[in-house]
């Protein structure tokens, strides 16, 4: 079966004359799965997401959605099917939460036609999924970083995408909100059948919530597969250039990545004084 989203031999970069950020990326994202995108800062996670979302023209290779080249189909075609929530800030926009989420419908309704009752229903559902309904009339100016993340996610959901790309949706969030967002991502993939690619900083979140993990480092896809196969001490040490320990989650058995012990605490054990 064709995967929902497939990258083939993708090379990405910015600006003429500058070197590629990523080369030779082959990635499959089947429907109903969560793929976590990992890698150190600057490894190209956001660049890859932007290329998959048809915001950045690849230097080589193709992005296919259900077999169709997204660059051969038009912009409108792609954005009705692929939604991306990048890290940004509300900036000067003084719109309300629901006004921002309604903009997600522009992918389907276009930029001129009025919204229909169907559109309103989709907006209501997106607000509900992101647990924003009680505060929908609030201005986005006065939101916390976590609330804004949920608004951005709801706006993407209002696009009714088949592929959802999320750039560090748990950044700047408190623990409870991180779990809430990841649980929502889990539901979207496994109950609604979306193909989700989510970039994460936290390796253990990837291990817990992702079906597959893609590890970017040194300008390419260093490893790609199930968390058990990718989150090994050797692979992680190579990607992040520092030693790591990998243990098991006491209940699920999923790999859990731990930092090595502090030098000072080792010395304290050794020293009889």
């Amino acid at each position, binding site marked *: 079966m064709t995967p929902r989203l497939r990258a083939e031999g993708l090379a990405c970069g910015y600006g003429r004359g500058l070197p590629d950020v990523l080369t030779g990326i082959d990635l499959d994202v089947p429907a109903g799965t969560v793929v976590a995108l990992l890698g150190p800062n600057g490894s190209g996670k956001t660049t890859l997401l932007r290329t998959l*979302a048809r*915001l950045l023209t690849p230097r080589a290779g193709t992005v296919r959605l259900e077999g169709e080249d997204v660059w051969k189909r038009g*912009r*409108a075609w*792609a*954005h*009705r099917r692929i*939604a*991306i*929530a*990048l890290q*940004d*800030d*509300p*900036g*000067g*926009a*003084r*719109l*309300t939460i629901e*006004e*921002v989420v309604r*903009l*997600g419908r*522009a*992918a389907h309704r276009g*930029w*001129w036609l009025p919204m229909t009752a169907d559109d309103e229903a989709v907006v209501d559902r997106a607000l509900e999924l992101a647990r924003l309904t009680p505060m929908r009339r609030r*201005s986005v100016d006065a939101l916390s970083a976590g609330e804004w993340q949920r608004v*951005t996610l709801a*706006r*993407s959901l209002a*696009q009714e995408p088949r592929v959802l790309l999320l750039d560090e949706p748990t950044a700047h969030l408190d623990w409870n909100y991180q779990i809430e967002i990841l649980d929502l991502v889990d539901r979207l993939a496994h109950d609604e059948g979306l193909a989700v690619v989510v970039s994460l900083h936290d390796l253990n979140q990837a291990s817990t919530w992702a079906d597959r993990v893609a590890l970017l480092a040194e300008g390419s896809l260093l490893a790609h597969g199930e968390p058990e196969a990718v989150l090994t001490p050797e692979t992680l040490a190579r990607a992040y250039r520092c030693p790591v320990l990998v243990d098991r989650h006491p209940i699920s058995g999923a790999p859990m990545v731990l930092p090595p012990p502090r030098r000072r605490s080792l010395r304290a054990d050794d020293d009889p004084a």
Partner: protein
Amino acid sequence: MSGRPARILLLLAILAVVGSLSLGVGSARLSPARIAAALVGEGSDADIVWDLRLPRIILAALVGLALGAAGAAYQGLFRNPLADPYVIGASTGSALGATLVMILAGDAGAMGFGAVSLGAFLGAMGAAGLVYVTAAWWGPAPIVTLLLAGTAVSSCLGAVVWLLMVLHDQELARIVLWMMGSLAGRSWSAVIGGTPYIALGFATLCALARPLDALSLGEQPARALGLPLRRMSGMVVAAASLATAAAVAVAGVIGFVGLIAPHVARAFVGARHRYLIPASGLCGAILLVLADDLARTVAAPTELPVGVLTAILGGPFFLVVLRRAVR
């Protein structure tokens, strides 16, 4: 939701009342009864009301409408609460374009309204486009950076206008009056000449409401929503510049109306451009009609250029908004 169209109608009603009362304001004060009589063509004031005050007030409203709507559009496009046609240099660009046409054509009167307007439009497009491209090239720049870019473009273009004035001193008085912005002595021909351009610019900006909402979120989110960024931002710049240029062509450079009006309008109808653009236009119209009333009376029998007045009143407002924006 139903509240916001009602509020826009309220602004329209306020404009109608302010406009009607303004008919009585000027060197000869007229009571409402005499205005009413004059409007139906009775009494000795009919000429004053019909030929002098009515076209002038309608023109003030049109220019205010254009500047207010353009200001709201620029503020959305640049994601900057301090953008307005004057601040980003579009007004000065218009003035330069129009001045160039006047001087190159020798006798501007012979060339007619169209050529000066076209010069003003190209000047406004050039200046606004230059500032926009600069800002886009710099990436998400702090609020003050855009203002400085606008100031630089504006000073530069303004200096060229002054240079032209020095080189062509036979046109000096006319250009000076124009750089200060004034509605004095405008007749129906200015109303008729300016209306199509202002109407087109205003209607286009109203139609661009949803793209402007997306643009106000920022370039990346707008593109992620599937917005054809260059085409839409180009249309916004063109429509806002058309409105600005039409306003400058008939009334000269009038600053700060486009800055203040959207802030007042936002308090009335919120930030969604579907309501904000018309409301900003109406607020701009009300503001400029009131400012022109002041300009006619505050130093009577001398008339002040209304552009000088709006600058005196708008400067402090600008500082207040700046303080809040960079806080």
